């Protein structure tokens, strides 16, 4: 195994850090406080190619690789969990399924604007009665009399980027079918829905514990007209597309968790070297040293899992279990490490004067969205054949 980054990846990391430090970090506190979507930052990221890192240049991408994308999310998350998830949801949950399952026309139509960040993407799977359990889907898509359009009805909740996205990948029930064992199940399909389609609207904005600047909203479909040409993949492939999309998405969320944890370690190292108690810098206490050693070790282990999953995806190997393990481990590590960072900061850590409490709030969601840690364990165990 080669654990070395390429020259390009090393240069990218430097550029991401520079950008994160100078453009993202100064806004992170305000973005959290005001719950405002950092639109200006997204525009800047678009201009720099950060909204389409691992897609080919012919579609307007930057021509990079999946690891370079994961590193981007990681570096952003070190300073701002919100900005990181905007890139992750846009890239993994919207650009990727169009690139991987779209027709040539769909790719030509949607990717250039998405990959250059002129348009923002989102993904609508979760419903009030169905999360990762796709069979619980209630949103329907029915071909109209003309046979030219699908009519969508229903709603989606907790949709990341929803308030500012222009293009949505939406999963809906298109009919009934039977599974391999002949049992009747719902036929599920995927669609590319534009914000401007009649009958589409964005509903209530959720007030969240963390990643407060990310726009998490409800999507409402009331006889929403979607041209037939916007069917993504074939009829009935929706479940497969959704699951593959989530596999990729998990690399992004794992990278977000990784960055949050690493960011907290960085802050804790800096703080404990400055803060004096009982006449000593608190970094001189063995408890601090051991805590930080453990924290860093956990994040380093997480990094190996995340990078390895990203490389497997890049090499078109089966990475589903790797992505699940990376997300499971990185998310739990991030929650633990950010919480420990707050403890090292003591009372100051609990105040909003220092960023670690924000990182702790931001980290929690990584154990929940795009498949909870419990779901990741299900995925991993099923790969182990433990059913």
């Amino acid at each position, binding site marked *: 195994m080669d654990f070395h980054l390429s*020259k*390009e990846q090393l*240069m*990218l990391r430097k*550029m991401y850090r*520079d*950008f994160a430090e100078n453009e993202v970090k100064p806004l992170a506190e305000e973005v959290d406080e005001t719950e405002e979507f950092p639109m200006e930052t997204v525009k800047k990221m678009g201009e720099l*190619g950060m909204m389409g890192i691992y897609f080919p240049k012919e579609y307007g991408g*930057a021509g*990079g690789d999946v690891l370079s994308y994961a590193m981007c999310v990681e570096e952003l998350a070190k300073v701002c969990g919100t900005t990181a998830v905007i890139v992750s949801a846009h890239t993994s949950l919207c650009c990727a399924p169009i690139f991987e399952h779209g027709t040539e026309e769909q790719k030509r139509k949607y990717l250039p604007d998405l990959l250059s960040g002129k348009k923002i993407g989102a993904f609508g799977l979760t419903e009030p009665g169905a999360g990762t359990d796709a069979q619980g889907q209630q949103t329907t898509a029915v071909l109209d009399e003309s046979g030219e359009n699908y009519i969508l009805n229903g709603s989606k909740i907790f949709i990341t980027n929803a308030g500012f996205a222009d293009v949505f990948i939406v999963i809906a029930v298109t009919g009934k079918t039977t599974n391999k064992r002949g049992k009747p199940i719902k036929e599920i399909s995927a669609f590319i829905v534009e914000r401007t389609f009649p009958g589409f609207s964005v509903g209530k904005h959720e007030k969240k514990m963390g990643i407060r600047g990310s726009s998490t909203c409800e999507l409402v479909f009331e006889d929403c007209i979607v041209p037939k040409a916007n069917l993504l993949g074939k009829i009935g492939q929706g479940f497969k597309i959704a699951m593959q999309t989530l596999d990729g998405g998990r690399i992004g969320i794992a990278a977000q968790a990784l960055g949050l944890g690493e960011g907290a370690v960085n802050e804790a190292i800096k703080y404990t070297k400055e803060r004096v108690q009982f006449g000593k810098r608190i970094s001189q206490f063995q408890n601090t040293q051991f805590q930080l050693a453990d924290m860093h070790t956990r994040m380093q282990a997480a990094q190996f899992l995340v990078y390895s999953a990203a490389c497997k995806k890049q090499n078109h190997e089966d990475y589903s279990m790797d992505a699940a393990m990376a997300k499971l481990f990185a998310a739990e590590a991030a929650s633990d490490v950010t919480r420990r960072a707050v403890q090292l900061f003591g009372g100051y850590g609990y105040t909003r004067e220092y960023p670690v409490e924000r990182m702790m709030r931001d980290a929690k969601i990584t154990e929940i969205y795009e498949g909870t840690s419990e779901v990741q364990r299900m995925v991993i165990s099923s790969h182990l054949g433990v059913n």
Partner: protein
Amino acid sequence: MKVIVCVKQVPDTSGKVAVNPDGTLNRASMETITNPDDMNAVEAALKLKDETGCKVIVVTMGPPPAEGMLRELLAMGADEGYLISGREFGGSDTYATSQIVAAGVNKIGVEKGDIVMCGRQAIDGDTAQVGPQIAEKLHLPQVTYAADIHKDGDDITVKRMLEDGYMTIKVKTPCLLTCIKELNKPRYMSVGGIFEAYSKPVTVLDYEALKDDPLIDPTTIGLKGSPTNILVSFTPPQKGAGMMLEGADMGTCEKLAGILAGKHII
């Protein structure tokens, strides 16, 4: 038309600066960066490229690892890099350095329509000498401290900063400009640019490549070509710590005001 930007890789003196026991700088322990003012020159050149489609060439003199810096500038959008590097050039002071860089620029070729740009000064030495001295060696007009640059055909109009205001200066190409941070905000490398950076050309100019230039002979480069010598370098002593006052309340402030008044400082 092309813009040739002269850049320097410098130790990042804003971070940790380590000094060896003999009073020299421990460069190995320090991060290197592209000199900040040079970044403004690169950005000014790339802006001209955005506007006119001109070619941007970056040139540096330094050890082989300085190629990494050139690649970063290529990732920002520059088209070509030149690395002037060779043992014969070691030990050069600003005068000899200017002589060598000027020869490198000659090798690339300066024609009508072209601009040579430099940063105002480098943060390692803060001398601000190399730009004007390259201009002198190339017989180019110079405008230093450029805070605004407008190009209209062969005419360049520069806002040249003074301590108490500015001058507007008109100059014709080819010319040399030195840039200050007020000029612009340097762009970031782009993701796409980074993936292209290693396929753009970087040419190494060693002594062999430059030795036919009239500016280059053994007495004009390296230690022999340097009119100045370092007699001694040293670290200044740290001023001893004074008094930390107890507390941070009104009483503390009154005590301090009392001391100042007692010493007739206020």
